[in-house]
């Protein structure tokens, strides 16, 4: 949840199904809700729920306005940008900040006892270029080709069919 990782875009995509490539920093927090979500619980029972999604500010100068909205949350989505390694490193900070506000731990045991539901999202998968993968796996593919001819045939079918 550093700035510009795409939190607002994710929320908009999920609740309205739309995507605008524009950037506008979130000031404080913003929220949208999505009705009639079917969720299966731990006992295999299906529930009809309404999700209230709070989109918090990522920019440092607006962060202090957003933290107050953490309290009362039932789950937290941590978002990083796949094209920015720094945003993944920052997740630690965001997770701590969140737990400080929410206090997910059991009474007297602190945050180490937390089972608070976090979900980690690596956003901007559309920007991933497949070429680095192809180049790095070239050596592997070549050795594979020579050693397991029949397997490699299946492999090629998977990739090119």
């Amino acid at each position, binding site marked *: 949840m550093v700035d510009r990782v795409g939190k607002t875009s994710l929320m908009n995509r999920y609740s309205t199904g739309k*995507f605008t490539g524009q950037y506008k920093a979130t000031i404080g927090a913003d929220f949208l809700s999505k009705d009639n979500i079917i*969720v*299966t619980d731990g006992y295999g029972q299906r529930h009809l729920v309404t999700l209230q999604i709070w989109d918090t500010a990522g920019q440092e100068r607006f962060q202090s306005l957003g933290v107050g909205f953490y309290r009362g949350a039932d*789950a937290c989505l*941590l978002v990083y940008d796949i094209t920015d390694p720094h945003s993944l490193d920052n997740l630690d900070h965001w997770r701590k900040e969140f737990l400080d506000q929410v206090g997910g731990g*059991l009474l007297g045991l602190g945050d180490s006892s937390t*089972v608070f*539901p976090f979900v980690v999202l690596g956003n901007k998968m*559309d920007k991933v270029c497949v070429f680095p993968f192809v180049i790095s796996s070239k050596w592997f593919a070549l050795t594979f080709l020579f050693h397991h001819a029949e397997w490699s045939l299946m492999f090629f079918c998977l990739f090119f069919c």
Partner: protein
Amino acid sequence: MVPREAAEEWCRTAASATIMGSMPLPHFETSAKTAESVEEAFQEAARRALLYEDYKKRMQPQLFIPPTHEPINLRRQTSSMSTLQGNGCC
């Protein structure tokens, strides 16, 4: 570019510092632009929120009511008091 392994490693370490131990945080590679895995990620968050709510309910301290085999006799006390008075200590 952040490799998938690095993100999954973070998910493991973040969970290992807590009671969850070897259960890594759920990880999704999404795209708001193409809608890839967005639905799944939010669905998983909602599912876990329900599980967490249930867990919290179960972890709440319950009021302990001891089993009562014998009914408590309230009169016994007064009767012993009356015998004490009957002895006439004063």
